[in-house]
């Protein structure tokens, strides 16, 4: 594979709880606690995990919508964390985002055309007004909409159409990396497939790189080249799609995969399922050692004492488990 486009190193984001002008915070939510991974040029990295595991926060930290507590986000050789507001504005063109909710991600007071033309104008990508209109039409057709949609307001479009507008808005900046934050989980299943296909088509045509955040394992399996599994602010396992779905090394990944239903009642009846006990611990007060040990079916004494590092157990297959 080719070189790394984005390198996330030891990313940490802690949110203090409470605390005003004169009082100290009463606690800290460890939303992300030392996450590292790289995304290679042209690939799709799937980031999965259950609600609250920090996958969305990871995406927001990469976009610098949240400033990380520590760690670095190196994009095209530049550490975005160290940039000031003006320098960041220039880099932001190259890293774009598609949001989960197509209803609230579009400004209800702007037409689709205004929305797509704005970045072209602000960043001076297309300076001439007439050419800008042409480019907006082009963007709309690129995502499967009609040029007439430029005059519509978001409330006049369906969910699938709005998500296409969200994609067009990201494309307008001519980015190389797009963070897709659960781009299909708010859509109907039939529309999901259309959007996924559109994303794949755009990737091969424009050479885009995706960080695809989702909780739907089958969608991630379909679109990703490599998959990272997150649990409670840490990466549990990171490997090629095939390896992670066929030979998962981390007990959490195994439990996740066994929760995916198989559309065949005979196989479903026969197969053995790993059912996790208990709830996800609070990120306010994460367990000692391996964060997964209180729920792990194979945990030993060592797991509650020492934090397992993310190790390369087989070539390209990383897992954070003492027993892997």
């Amino acid at each position: 594979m080719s070189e790394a486009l984005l390198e996330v190193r030891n990313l940490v984001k802690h949110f203090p709880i409470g605390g005003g002008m004169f009082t100290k915070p009463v606690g800290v939510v460890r939303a992300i606690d030392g996450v590292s991974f790289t995304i290679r040029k042209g690939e799709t990295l799937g980031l999965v995990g259950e609600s609250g595991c920090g996958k969305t926060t990871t995406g927001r930290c990469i976009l610098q919508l949240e400033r990380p507590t520590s760690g670095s986000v190196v994009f095209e050789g530049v550490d975005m964390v160290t940039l000031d507001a003006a320098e960041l504005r220039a880099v932001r063109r190259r890293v774009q985002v598609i949001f989960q909710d197509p209803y609230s991600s579009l400004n209800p007071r702007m037409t689709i055309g205004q929305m797509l033309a704005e970045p072209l104008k602000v960043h001076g990508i297309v300076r001439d007004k007439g050419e800008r209109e042409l480019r907006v039409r082009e963007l709309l057709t690129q995502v499967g909409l009609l040029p007439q949609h430029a005059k519509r307001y978001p409330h006049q479009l369906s969910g699938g159409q709005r998500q296409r507008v969200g994609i067009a808005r990201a494309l307008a900046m001519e980015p190389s990396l797009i963070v897709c934050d659960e781009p299909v989980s708010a859509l109907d299943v039939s529309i999901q497939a259309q959007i996924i296909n559109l994303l794949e088509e755009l990737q091969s045509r424009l050479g885009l790189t995706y960080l695809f955040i989702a909780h739907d394992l089958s969608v991630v399996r379909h679109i990703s080249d490599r998959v990272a599994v997150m649990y409670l602010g840490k990466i549990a396992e990171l490997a090629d799609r095939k390896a992670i779905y066929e030979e998962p090394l981390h007990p959490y990944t195994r439990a996740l995969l066994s929760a995916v239903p198989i559309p065949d009642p005979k196989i479903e009846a026969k197969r053995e399922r790993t059912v996790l006990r208990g709830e996800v611990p609070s990120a306010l007060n994460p367990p000692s050692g391996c964060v997964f040990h209180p729920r792990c079916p194979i945990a030993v004494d060592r797991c509650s004492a020492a934090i397992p590092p993310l190790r390369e157990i087989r070539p390209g297959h990383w897992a954070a488990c003492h027993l892997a």
Partner: protein
Amino acid sequence: MAASKETLEGLAQAESPRARWLQAVLDFTWQRPLGAIGAVIIVVMVLVALTAHWLAPFEALATDYGAMLAAPSAQHWLGTDAYGRDVYSRMIFGSRTALIVGLGASFIGATLGALIGVASAYFGGRIDLIVQRIMDVLISFPLIILALAVVAILGTGLENVILAIAIPMIPRCARVVRSSALAVREMPYVDAARAAGFRDSRIVLRHMLPNVMAPYLIMLTAFLGQAILLEASLSFLGLGVQEPVAAWGLMLRGAAVEFAETAPWMAFFPGLAISLAVFAFNLFGDSLRDALDPRLRTQ
């Protein structure tokens, strides 16, 4: 490509904006008749102010020393004041002062307040904390006290009165708009604008401000009545617009107090005009708030 059925359905929904406006006005009239009455009075008032020169039988400053303190008659419909000026004509010209001060003050006050509120919500954190404490300090003064203080610093006169009324309104609007803006701040489209590398000023003005229009309009109309009342109060206290400008509050003071028993028309009719104007603006403002409120959630 995939421009399928959903695309075509979206195109069919469009209707002309003018038809939608007309429908909205009709709905408002039907559902909130009191608000519509308020709106009619406001429209009449605006028309009167615009056509004052044709409507008024006398000039605002024309004196008739032959008919000082004259009772209402065929010539002077609502009587005359101590200088023989026609009360009816001065009331008509007075609507201009009321509207200019009312509109000017509430527009300036609500707009600056909305800007401060949205910016405060957008930047958040320490900036928000400091701005809001300053607003708290300003809000702790009653409207009239703060207005009096501003007049004391700036002096009297039309422009200063407008400012004096606008300034106490700023924190009140800022607070209401901020609470709506806090919700807008969390909308993904604001994140999208930040991720697009837009400047803070553009995000505040183009992406957030248009989405807090409903509370802004409500505050604006609610302030109109208050501003007119405040202008009348200031003028009555001698700290607002100055003689010989025709203003309702001014007509209540001076000779009107002295001759209240012998020439009650001098005070009665301008007082009625003030009450009616404030009443109309409040009726309309309340109804507008009710009409817009449920939409705050859905839009």
